């Protein structure tokens, strides 16, 4: 049997959108080279800890991937393998891949969860990854990551519209906010993604509907539960006017205890990841979800009332932007649509969402990876655009072979 000629290498520059490019490379099976990663930085050139950790994760869930770093870490060559998931004998123990996140990781766990959820439907076996270690932050972070709660309540339900809905779980086993100087946490999160498909269904989402209810989770780790009550009170003060069916659940937990070895006491432990936060999800009658997230900064000094109000305003802003997909969920939805069958899927997107930098860059990157371009036309609503995406039928490479 002769192997197909290797697809040409795609070249990218810069550290931005690294994860997005790696995911697209894995899905389409095209090798990429990313160069000049923070090349101009004198203090910390090359890949950041979270990026290295993500590459490790990619290596763990795929089979036959090749990753090569340059000496300084400013260039990465990635040849994707097959997405095997948590199949036995591939580094998964008892069907679970343990992924340790280093303590100097400044990104929330959703930085790993979102791309993993994008890869998971196309995996060969189910994906079952336990994120653990001293770097797992389940709350939202100042670096722009959403909380694990938002992933569960606002992102994972979106997969249902693509026909991916069974056996999906995101267990937040231990909560953690950002640790000191915004790095590290000590939480624990397990993602089980057991619904694999050959191709996601074609999506037609034209009507955003009206927001009918708002739900949310207020969490505080290692601090008084009264913070939750104050967050909820402030958020409800804003939101109750618009949606009387508002309910925010409260979750109080103790701070994670992570090992912090000292010279004369190697078994020492310390508490980390103290703080509180709020995750809000607004649900429209058509099933469209908008979300907002906020967490106390690691430096402190923000009263819960302010944060609750800010979060509520954020949610209102997301609703105001309109469309059937919010800012946070747009890349996931649009990528899945591009991976779908060779059929035109349509989705209404708010102009502000569509015009945002990540979405624009996603469109460009998809083009680079050989996907078809997007068709845009003015939507029915004010400030809305209907995006038509023709799938490429890339789908599940592992299924094709098997």
């Amino acid at each position, binding site marked *: 049997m002769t192997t197909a000629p290797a697809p040409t290498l795609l070249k990218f520059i810069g550290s931005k959108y690294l994860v997005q490019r790696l995911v697209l490379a894995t899905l389409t099976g095209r090798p990429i080279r990313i160069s000049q990663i923070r090349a101009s930085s004198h203090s910390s050139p090359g890949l950041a800890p979270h990026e290295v950790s993500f590459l490790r994760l990619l290596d763990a869930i795929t089979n036959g991937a090749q990753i090569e770093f340059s000496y300084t870490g400013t260039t990465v060559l990635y040849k994707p393998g097959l997405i095997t998931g948590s199949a036995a004998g591939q580094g998964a123990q008892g069907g679970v891949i343990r992924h340790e996140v280093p303590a100097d990781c400044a990104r929330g766990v959703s930085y790993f969860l979102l791309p993993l959820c994008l890869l998971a439907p196309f995996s060969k076996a189910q994906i079952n990854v336990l994120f653990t270690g001293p770097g797992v932050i389940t709350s939202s972070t100042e670096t722009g990551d959403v909380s694990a709660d938002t992933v*569960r*309540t606002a992102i*994972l*339900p979106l*997969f*249902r519209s693509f026909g991916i809905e069974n056996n*999906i*779980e*995101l*267990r*937040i086993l231990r909560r953690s906010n950002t640790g000191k100087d915004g790095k590290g946490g000590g939480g624990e999160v397990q993602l089980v993604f057991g619904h694999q498909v050959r191709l996601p269904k074609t999506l037609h989402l034209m009507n955003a509907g009206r927001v009918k209810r708002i*739900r949310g*989770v207020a969490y505080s780790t290692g601090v008084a539960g009264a913070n939750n009550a104050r967050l909820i009170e402030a958020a409800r003060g804003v939101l109750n006017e618009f949606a009387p069916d508002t*309910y925010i*659940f409260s*979750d109080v937990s103790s701070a994670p205890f992570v090992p912090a070895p000292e010279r004369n006491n190697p078994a020492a432990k310390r508490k980390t990841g103290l703080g509180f936060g709020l995750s809000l999800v607004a*649900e429209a009658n058509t*099933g469209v979800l908008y979300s907002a997230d906020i967490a106390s900064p690691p430096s402190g000094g923000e009263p819960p009332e302010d944060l609750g109000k800010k979060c509520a305003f954020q949610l209102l802003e997301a609703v105001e932007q309109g469309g059937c997909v919010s800012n946070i969920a747009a890349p996931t939805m649009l990528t899945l649509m591009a991976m779908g069958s060779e059929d035109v899927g349509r989705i209404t997107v708010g102009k502000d969402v569509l015009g945002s930098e990540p979405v624009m860059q996603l469109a460009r990157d998809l083009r680079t990876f050989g996907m078809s371009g997007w068709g845009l036309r003015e939507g029915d609503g004010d400030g809305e655009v209907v995006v038509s995406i023709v799938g490429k039928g890339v789908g599940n490479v592992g299924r094709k072979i098997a």
Partner: protein
Amino acid sequence: MAVTLGKRKRTTGVVDRTDQNESDNEDARALFQRAFEAKFKPLESSAKPVKAAVKSHVGDEDDVDDDDGGNGNDESDWTGLSEDADEIVIEIVNHDVVRSEDEEARRREMKAFMSPKPPTSHHISPSVSKRPKVDSADDAKEGDNLKQDLALQRLLKESHLLDSSSLQGPTAAPEGKGRLKALELRLQDLGAKKPATEQVRMPLAHRKGIAAKATGREAARRKEAVENGIILEKAKLAARPEKHRERGVIAPGVGKFRGGTLKLSSRDVKSIEGPQQRMGGKGRKR
């Protein structure tokens, strides 16, 4: 000190005679009142006796608290609640029922939302079993029909088990051994794999004997049938145990691999090729 404490405790435990008398009195009065009200119309002042009881209770406690238990009379300087308090009508509003229902729904929703699964968009309403109303006469008829139907089915299926003795009873049902056999049949109909009456543990000799007897009986029956010219059903051949194909770990799943060569029989080749497809044209030309 301990002694006095004990004494004090005892005094609290003692039931006041007068109080009990009074309560007996009250009970009697309440009884009478109820009887009266049942016959005529409700009386106006029904709250009075309760008030009295409260007052007397307070008085008792005061008595207990008195350190010098020597005098032990009911009269003390505190005369209980003032008369003005009686005029205040205490209205009790109970929200308990509504609250519990609300709480239930909230808890259910919390469970749904906070579970590890992504929350579903549609709200799951509490399971209310709606049963279509059927008038009782129709229902009874339907039930009767079903019963008769079942009886008929059973009669048809198990009629071979019936004998003269079983027909004497009020209902024609097999009895004794026949009943057990009928049960067995019903179980098999429901999908039982093995007979329930089969003995699981038994000496090997017995088992062999039973098997031998069964095969002997079957053979005798067949022989008799042949002699009498009766055609029986075809004898079922015992399933042969499947031969285990010896195969190496990485050996191919087809053919025989001996001495470094893979030998394919013509059957193997056919199985690999699959059903022959006709080449173009219509049959062979002559």
